[in-house]
């Protein structure tokens, strides 16, 4: 009998019960759905990035724009670690340094082309992520913060002291991307428009890598792994009880953060063609963290806004250049005190899409049971059952 049932259950295809009522299709329009709006916004942002060199291709603008894009990449990477997985990494710039130095050394000392160095960079960053993550991710969050801080300092001091990294003066003359005999330095012309080397780099590497990086990180967060990260962030014990391998989830967040930072480091090495240990101080780890926190941890648009703010603030607020770190510090405290989810929170809903919940009817004399009815039951006045509520 039981076996028959077993057999039957095994071979009868299981189907979900038919829905009790037809659900309306969720709206898909640009202004009627959150998703549609975010996609449109993303498209506009990508278009702006693509059109920028046609509006202003001066060396200054291109340089600032490329730096800002690199910041966006870094912040998206840190957002995976801090925003999604909830691991405070204070030495994040170390992975940036690993990326920059590995690509710098492979192209200048070993003479590899940049695309080959990119592969080496990614491998090195994955390795670095595992080396740092494996022993430390079992620690509690605040220990992790200080260990990563120590690790960041170790990387910087090591780069400062070793010969192969060029010591305090760093590495110079890092070549740009090249394929065979042609390199970005040559530039090229298409349809009668001349593309100088900085614009080519901006287009074909920085912008593309960052757009892919932003979309990739955002989509990772929506998948199975991303949900595991968020579960670990919200309650590690509960996540573990639900069958999530929290260790794997954390270390994968760490590795992905490391790869993002490594690619950003590679871009920066190519962009500036020179790197030195001073670019990898704790200050920059803190700045990236600030960008993520100010924008909104775990929120892609928020983090992009934060990254642009932090990277462009010194350019826009030249008069306040001296004051900006102080302002950032105060802002960090103020944001944490009054708006801990940031400028554009991850759970933000567009204001015009906010569903108006029906409010429960307020208690009025009209809805209360008249005292006379109560009295008529047993002749004695009963205490108003809602008296406590009204008080």
């Amino acid at each position, binding site marked *: 009998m039981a076996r028959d049932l077993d057999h039957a259950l095994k071979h009868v295809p299981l189907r979900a019960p038919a829905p009790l009522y037809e659900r309306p299709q969720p709206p898909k329009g640009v202004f009627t759905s959150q998703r549609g709006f975010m996609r449109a916004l993303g498209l506009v942002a990508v278009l702006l990035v693509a059109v920028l060199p046609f509006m202003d291709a001066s060396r200054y603008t291109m340089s600032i724009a490329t730096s800002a894009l690199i910041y966006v990449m870094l912040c998206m990477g840190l957002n995976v670690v801090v925003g999604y997985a909830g691991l405070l990494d204070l030495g994040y710039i170390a992975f940036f340094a690993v990326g920059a130095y590995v690509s710098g050394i492979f192209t200048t000392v070993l003479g590899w082309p940049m695309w080959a160095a990119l592969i080496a960079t990614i491998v090195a960053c994955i390795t670095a992520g595992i080396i740092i993550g494996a022993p430390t991710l079992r620690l509690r969050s*605040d220990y992790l913060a*200080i260990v990563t801080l120590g690790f960041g300092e170790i990387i910087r001091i090591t780069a400062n002291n070793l010969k192969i990294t060029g010591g305090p003066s760093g590495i110079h003359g890092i070549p740009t991307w090249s394929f065979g005999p042609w390199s970005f330095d040559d530039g090229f012309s298409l349809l009668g428009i001349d593309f100088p080397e900085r614009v080519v780099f901006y287009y074909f590497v920085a912008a593309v890598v960052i757009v892919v990086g932003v979309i990739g990180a955002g989509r990772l967060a929506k998948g199975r792994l991303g949900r595991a990260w968020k579960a670990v962030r919200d309650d590690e014990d509960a996540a573990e009880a639900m069958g999530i391998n929290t260790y794997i989830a954390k270390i994968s967040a760490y590795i992905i953060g490391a790869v993002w930072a490594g690619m950003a480091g590679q871009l920066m090495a190519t962009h500036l063609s020179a790197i030195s240990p001073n670019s990898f101080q704790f200050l920059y780890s*803190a700045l990236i963290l600030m960008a993520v926190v100010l924008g909104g941890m775990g929120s892609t648009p928020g983090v992009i806004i934060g990254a642009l703010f932090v990277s462009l603030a010194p350019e826009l607020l030249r008069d306040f250049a001296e004051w900006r*770190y102080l302002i950032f510090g105060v802002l*960090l*405290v103020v944001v944490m005190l009054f708006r801990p989810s940031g400028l554009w929170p991850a759970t933000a809903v567009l204001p015009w899409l906010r569903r108006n919940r029906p409010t429960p009817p307020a208690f009025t004399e009209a809805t209360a049971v008249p005292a006379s009815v109560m009295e008529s039951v047993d002749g004695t006045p009963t205490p108003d059952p809602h008296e406590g509520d009204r008080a």
Partner: protein
Amino acid sequence: MMQLIWNGLIVGSFYALVALGYSMVYGIIKLLNFAHGDIYMLGAFVGFFTLSAFGISNETSIPLLLVVLLLSMVTTGLIGVGIERIAYRPLRRSPRLAVLITAIGVSFTLEYGVRQIFGPNPEAFPIRLESSGFDVLGMRVTASQIVLVVIAAVLMLVLAHIVERTRQGRAMRAIALDPTGAQLMGVNVDRVIAMVFFIGSALAGAAGVMAGAYYGSIDFLMGFIIGLKAFTAAVIGGIGNLYGAMLGGVLLGMLESFGSAWFGGEWRDVFAFGFLILFLTLKPTGLLGARVVERM
């Protein structure tokens, strides 16, 4: 050899003083106070400011040092209480990440606030300790070094007395064990936490003045590395444990002293942080720390 031990002891006593504040705050509210290293820096700058205001420079008098020390301790203690009140108390029930980020913000604010006031360049500390000394047991010892070590030891003894023998100390230990339980027993939790911040910050301020007098120059970023080192010391000794922080500080001073003698001075910090990572992964409770249950 003996010289290395002696040097290690001096640096170690600075570390121990700063580590005590870290350890106390961590023990009582489980907060990693990133701004603690900057309180040390503030201590040095308060001393600098006071002495400069009176037009004193290149002084070598030790009583003057003691007066400045006391003044700095009170000032930094009050600043510590203020920071706790403004930045940490409202977040006491928030997730840990939020408080940690706030602490970084406070640290930044202090560092760059001092930079705006005193400028980015290192300043010469007005009290210099004389460097003439005598040889004992094959090591070169100066009178001022002895004074520094003695001050550090006295401060630690006073602290140990407060925590272990007084009513306030008992309240601190009660809160460290169980804040809710302590509150139910009538302990004024907010006031005791403020007091812990006062004591911890005062010790860090004292260390700052002493370091200023010992090294002779101060700058607005001097607290960053020592904050990290003091945390290492607290972890080595077992965070939350007072004697552990003292032991860890002295031990770290020695380790660094020997490490830089063997591997070269430029690797000193790498050596110290390597120890931090090693300790945290192999023995996170430190040498004297009690085994704590993390899950609840």
